[in-house]
């Protein structure tokens, strides 16, 4: 299979900071790795910039529940929440459930937030269906809920702030399809079962491959908890099961760094196309080494900031758009050092004040 050496091909890879002021999403991916204009989004009138409101006169109390902090993605998001709340004079209680397997804990945490009568709740849901009940309890108690990053299957939320996961899936498919122009076999590490991101990204990846790159076949897919250990284990097993793997899709880079380790250990670094989402330090390292081909970068810090802004706007009785998409970038070996990471990562040395 013809896996192109990335270095040669990439002219200028996608430094498309769409977060601010652009009418369109992150589609201006003028890179050798993704044909430009290949992933037009059909996103319905999404907000692409969401400026900070004026500082409110009162100090609001905002409760925030996120799945875990073991992934730097959520550390960046936590920084966004905390820093933005400081700017807007809000008091924050940040709760983490300890992983995507602790739905019951997240439900209890949100109930505790309702009981302690916070002004608003920001929720990155562990499970879309699983958090419906508690979101409706909050709504019934008159506490607005803002979904950030991972969505609840309920129309009772004030707004949904996330990356356009559909675009992330398609962008990964475009990298894969372009790299495997003569066809190839792909496996998918989809990520945490039951989360909106794992579902939407993976489905979009499949759909885009089938539509545009029919000679790229999907051999298998696995869901797992979103950890490097799971990625490593699943990828090792995939390599045993299918000797003819040419590409690996990763719904999140937490599995990708584990999978990259497996690919590297098998001596297949660079000969298997690996795509991922997000940009933790290990992902950066593996891209630099040429093990991971490209990663689609979300802006977790921006998500956190917008979440707090939306909460304040809603509490100040200002209208809040029902859906907001934060921007995306593509990171490759070529553009690594030119990326602006302030919307992605907490400043180094910053640690979240978890409750």
């Amino acid at each position: 299979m013809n896996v192109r050496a990335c270095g040669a091909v990439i002219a200028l890879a996608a430094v498309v900071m769409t977060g601010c002021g652009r009418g369109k999403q992150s589609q201006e991916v003028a890179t050798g790795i993704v044909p430009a204009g290949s992933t037009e989004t059909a996103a319905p009138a999404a907000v692409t910039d969401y400026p900070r409101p004026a500082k409110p006169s009162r100090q609001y109390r905002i409760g925030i529940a996120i799945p875990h902090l073991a992934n730097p993605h959520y550390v960046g998001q936590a920084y966004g929440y905390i820093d933005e709340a400081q700017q807007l004079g809000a008091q924050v209680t940040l709760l983490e459930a300890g992983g995507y397997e602790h739905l019951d804990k997240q439900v209890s945490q949100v109930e505790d937030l309702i009981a302690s009568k916070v002004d608003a709740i920001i929720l990155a849901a562990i499970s879309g269906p699983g958090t419906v009940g508690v979101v409706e309890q909050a709504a019934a108690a008159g506490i607005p809920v803002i979904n950030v990053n991972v969505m609840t299957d309920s129309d009772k939320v004030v707004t949904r702030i996330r990356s356009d996961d559909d675009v992330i899936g398609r962008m990964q498919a475009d990298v894969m399809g372009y790299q495997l122009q003569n066809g190839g076999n792909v496996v998918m590490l989809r990520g945490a079962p039951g989360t909106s991101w794992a579902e939407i990204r993976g489905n979009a990846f499949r759909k885009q491959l089938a539509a545009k790159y029919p000679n790229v076949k999907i051999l298998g897919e696995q869901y797992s908890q979103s950890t490097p250990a799971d990625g490593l284990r699943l990828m090792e097993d995939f390599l045993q099961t299918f000797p003819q793997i040419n590409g690996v899709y990763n719904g999140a880079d937490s599995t990708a760094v584990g999978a990259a380790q497996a690919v590297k250990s098998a001596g297949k670094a660079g000969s298997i196309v690996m795509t991922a989402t997000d940009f933790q330090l290990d992902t950066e390292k593996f891209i630099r080494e040429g093990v991971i081909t490209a990663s689609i970068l979300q802006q977790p810090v921006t998500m956190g900031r917008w979440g707090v802004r939306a909460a304040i706007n809603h509490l100040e009785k200002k209208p809040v758009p029902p859906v907001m998409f934060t921007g995306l970038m593509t990171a490759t070996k070529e553009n690594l050092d030119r990326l602006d990471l302030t919307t992605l990562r907490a400043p180094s040395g910053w640690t979240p004040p978890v409750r």
Partner: protein
Amino acid sequence: MPAVILGLAVIFGTINPNFWSVTNMANVSRQMSILALLAIGQTFAILSGGIDLSVGSLLALVSVVCAQTMKTFGLVEGITAGLLAGTVAGLISGLIIARARVPAFIATLGMLVAARGAALTLSGGLPIAGLPREFLVLGAGYIGPFPIPTVIAATAFVLAHVILSRTRFGRYVYAMGSNEEAAVLSGINVANYKMLVYITSGLFAGLAGVILTARVISGQPTLGEVQELYSIAAVVIGGGRISGGVGGIGTTLMGVLVLGILGNGLNLVQVSSYIQNIVIGAIIVGAVWIDLARERRR
């Protein structure tokens, strides 16, 4: 132990007055009900000289079976299937323990792993959504001022107390746990009653699983991680002896209250969830230590 619980409540209430609010009391008791039901089942197992390590992942298996059946056949069928799934799993553990004479620790450890696997297999690892909205009532509804899960757990406490203190089965559970050999020699059909112990534990896990499924209004194969350990902790914190024969529903209730109030209270007074784990760990060991020290002095 009641003094400790009252002390905790007073401290939390002083720091955050919301702790004593009606909403929060309803909230704590609802959160505790799952642990309470598991701990009641665990009380039977531990009192009889055994242990049931499987209850955590039984929650997941019950949740998946309940949700799948409910989607296909309906509300009542789903609840029944969930309860049945817990009971049958308990029966299997019981058979392995009582008939094949595999130690309870090993048999239920096997069930812990296998039930999780079964839950993941049946569901394909995915949550099962689209359950009827009325089902949410079981998890979030109220009877008067009391949350329905709380009422169910309270009823279960009373029922289990009656069984343990007033029935032959209850007396035999204590007898087996105090001295199994003596129980055999005095003509008790130990094998049968052991099976009944694990069926009971499975049934309570089934009830807990159904309520938890209603609370999250979906079937979830990843529910219940490490809950078996908390259920054991609840039994021993209150004063139940880990080797069996000593304890009861009253002491288990104390243990459940301590764990439940700690979890909720520490959240409300904003103690880091990492530190919470350290506190709970220390309390598990400390409570048993104090208990043993008191026993030795006697």
